């Protein structure tokens, strides 16, 4: 049995697996807490992970059901069994992609349930010690913006992890990445603005209303609806986020000149 303690956002996750490839993948992808520093970091989540489940991904649809007090998230390539507090979880996965998506699914459900924050389908870049989020539909340029923004720090290129409090919104160094990697030495930063992207021959930045922002962000949150009470928490946090952070439509060319409009 291989046991690791990893950190995601403010949370410690104790991961158990009997599969060496899973153990190695976890160590490659996440901030691993050395054993000598385990004392005092009580795990927020306990996960058991096994490989050998299902078939390669064919359909992103996740079926969610409840059996004998256990929540079950099932996809072609993974099955998650979780207690309703999302703190004790069993993952069965087909491959590394399934493992990544299963971890995103359950961690996102956990932070919604606990009211900590949201995982948003977006990239996030640091400029002047503040974080700037870039969201949009598939192909809109989220990871392109992150790439064009270098050497600025990239907090995320696929899924931005944000903590939402009544008087503060902070973006964290996200482990859920597609094209970039992180050494987990990046500080979390206050979120200064949200941008909804559109590639264009022009560069144009225009403010959008709070209601429009909530409306357009809700389908960009990594969240699989199954319980109206949890879904209401998503709306509530989206609202709290939008009340504190200004949002803009951003038309951008494939270069970094858009930063002149932002800063």
């Amino acid at each position, binding site marked *: 049995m291989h046991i690791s303690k990893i950190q995601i956002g403010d949370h410690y996750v104790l991961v158990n697996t009997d599969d060496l490839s899973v153990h190695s993948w976890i160590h490659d992808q996440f901030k691993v807490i050395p054993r000598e520093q385990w004392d005092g970091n009580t795990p927020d989540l306990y996960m058991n992970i096994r490989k050998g489940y299902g078939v390669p991904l064919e359909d992103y649809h996740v079926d969610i059901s409840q059996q004998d007090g256990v929540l079950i998230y099932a996809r072609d390539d993974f099955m998650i069994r979780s207690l309703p507090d999302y703190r004790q979880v069993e993952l069965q996965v087909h491959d590394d992609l399934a493992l990544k998506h299963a971890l995103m699914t359950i961690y996102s459900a956990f932070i919604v349930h606990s009211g900590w924050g949201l995982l948003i389908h977006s990239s996030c870049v640091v400029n002047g010690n503040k974080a700037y989020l870039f969201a949009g539909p598939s192909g809109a340029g989220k990871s392109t913006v992150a790439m064009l923004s270098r050497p600025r720090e990239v907090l995320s290129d696929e899924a931005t992890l944000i903590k939402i409090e009544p008087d503060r919104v902070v973006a964290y160094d996200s482990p859920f990445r597609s094209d970039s990697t992180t050494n987990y030495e990046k500080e979390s930063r206050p979120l200064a603005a949200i941008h909804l992207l559109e590639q264009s021959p022009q560069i144009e930045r225009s403010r959008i*209303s*709070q*209601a*429009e922002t*909530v*409306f357009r962000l*809700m*389908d960009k949150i990594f969240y699989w*609806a199954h319980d*109206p*009470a949890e*879904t*209401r928490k998503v*709306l509530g946090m989206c*609202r709290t986020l*939008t*009340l504190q952070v200004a949002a803009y439509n951003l038309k951008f060319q494939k270069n970094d000149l858009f930063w002149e409009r932002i800063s």
Partner: protein
Amino acid sequence: MWKCAEHMEAVEMEGEWVVLDSEKYLITKLNEVGGWIYSRIQAGDTLETLVQAMCGEYGISEEQAKNDILVFADQLVQCGLIENVA
């Protein structure tokens, strides 16, 4: 007479409204007037009280108010945000 459908969560921001069907995860944005009508239906207004309130709020005739409310309420019913009740 109408009532809000079950599992609806509505929030008002800067005069506009966002209504979430928390069971189906469907979201609808309403402009200021639409949100105002929705919030009155949510509060239990009948057509008659809503017409009177709209005339007072927006300075339009009763006929105009009634017509606008019925057209808009029909759209809300079709979107599943409210239901007709006897």
